[in-house]
């Protein structure tokens, strides 16, 4: 990110809550691509399949997440 871009970013960051400025600046300064706003949206499913399943203890009443 160029010096001009960083100045513009700091100007925008000055408009947000103070406790977020440092956090967002760290994420944004390192990569110009990160500044291009993008989002993903997805429905929360009930069962996400195999990704987190492993041979693991699960206490009674803990639900399904220990799989």
């Amino acid at each position, binding site marked *: 990110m160029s010096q001009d871009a960083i100045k513009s970013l700091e100007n925008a*960051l000055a408009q947000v809550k103070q406790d977020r400025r440092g956090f967002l600046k760290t994420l944004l300064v390192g990569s110009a691509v*990160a500044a291009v706003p993008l*989002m993903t949206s*997805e429905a929360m499913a009930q069962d996400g399949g*195999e*990704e987190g*399943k492993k*041979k693991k203890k699960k206490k009674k009443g803990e639900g399904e*997440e220990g*799989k």
Partner: protein
Amino acid sequence: MPNPIINPAILLSPVETGYVAYDPIGDKLHQLNPGAALLAELCDGTRSVDDLRALAGPFMPEGSVDAIDRWIDDAMTAGLLTWGGSVSAAHREFSADELFDFASRLKSCGKVQTAFLCLQKTVELKPDHTEAWYKLGDVAQSVGRRAEARIAYEKYLELEPGGDAELEQILVALRGEAPPERAPDRCIQQIYRDFAWHYDSQMREDLQYQGPERLLDVLMPVIGERRDLSILDIGCGSGLAGVALRPLARHLIGVDLSPEMLELARKRNIYDKLEVAEITEWLENTKDSFDVIACCDCLIYFGDLGRIVSAAGKRLKKDGGFVFSMERGDVHPFKLTDTGRYAHHPDHVREAAASAGLSVAELREAFLRMEYGVEVMGLYAALTK
């Protein structure tokens, strides 16, 4: 024209990749990259789209200013933004407990990467949240973040000292320390005290465990047409292997360290005798001899196989067979994995057999079960006297 504003129903949290947002009405998860997170912060109802373009446009890469309009359109369609009034309104953020519950739900939905991010934030918001540290370690392992898993488990044990023997074993692996000869008794007992009640369903249905069937594949060539055998099932657990062994047995004994698992085995009513004991000691103290000694998915808690193979070899009758399964490893002789279990190199099986004066009748690689959605390969061995 009203200004864009974050939908007041939305819960937001900063995470290391940007923001995570949850819409409880639409039951939808949104993930915002850093640029979108900044725009979300700016969308507090006081700024028009023109204001947003003027603020964010100058630091965007050349030619990407249209991305602001596109993102606003997308966020409106997804329900993250709405056209609000002209007064400032702060969006709502997750509390630590809300975020923990949300992360638990994400994990159960299979969204482990996002769960990891949310748990990281949970412990940042509430550093004494013991359950969150535990779950963060667990999820960090799921997503391959070993260093974060180690730190999280260490923090959990700091808050709950002496509270988890299994974690202590896992930490040995995560720290890269020299592994103990085998998992401590209290570790195994703890695992199966918590695991027993859902062991069969998790292993058979969720993880497609095939240990007993594949073990039978290496046993049958050893026993040929012989039946009415005296069979010892060491580490018999809930008796899954016993079900496969019973039709071959005149007398079937089961030995296991976990009383809870043995209780399940007892309910099957297939064993002639069941004993709670550590299997190496039991083998070294018994005077009985057996046609077959079977050990299904139990040597995963043993590192060096020398002592157990030797002890089993001494209790085999002539032409008897010691059959067992384990996780196949690439490190010789064995490796303590991040699960707290051991994986063995095939050459170590051959060496242990040779030391015990046994012959390797079968040593094959085959599917054992699933873990984290991928196949775990097992080693199935038949050693004969």
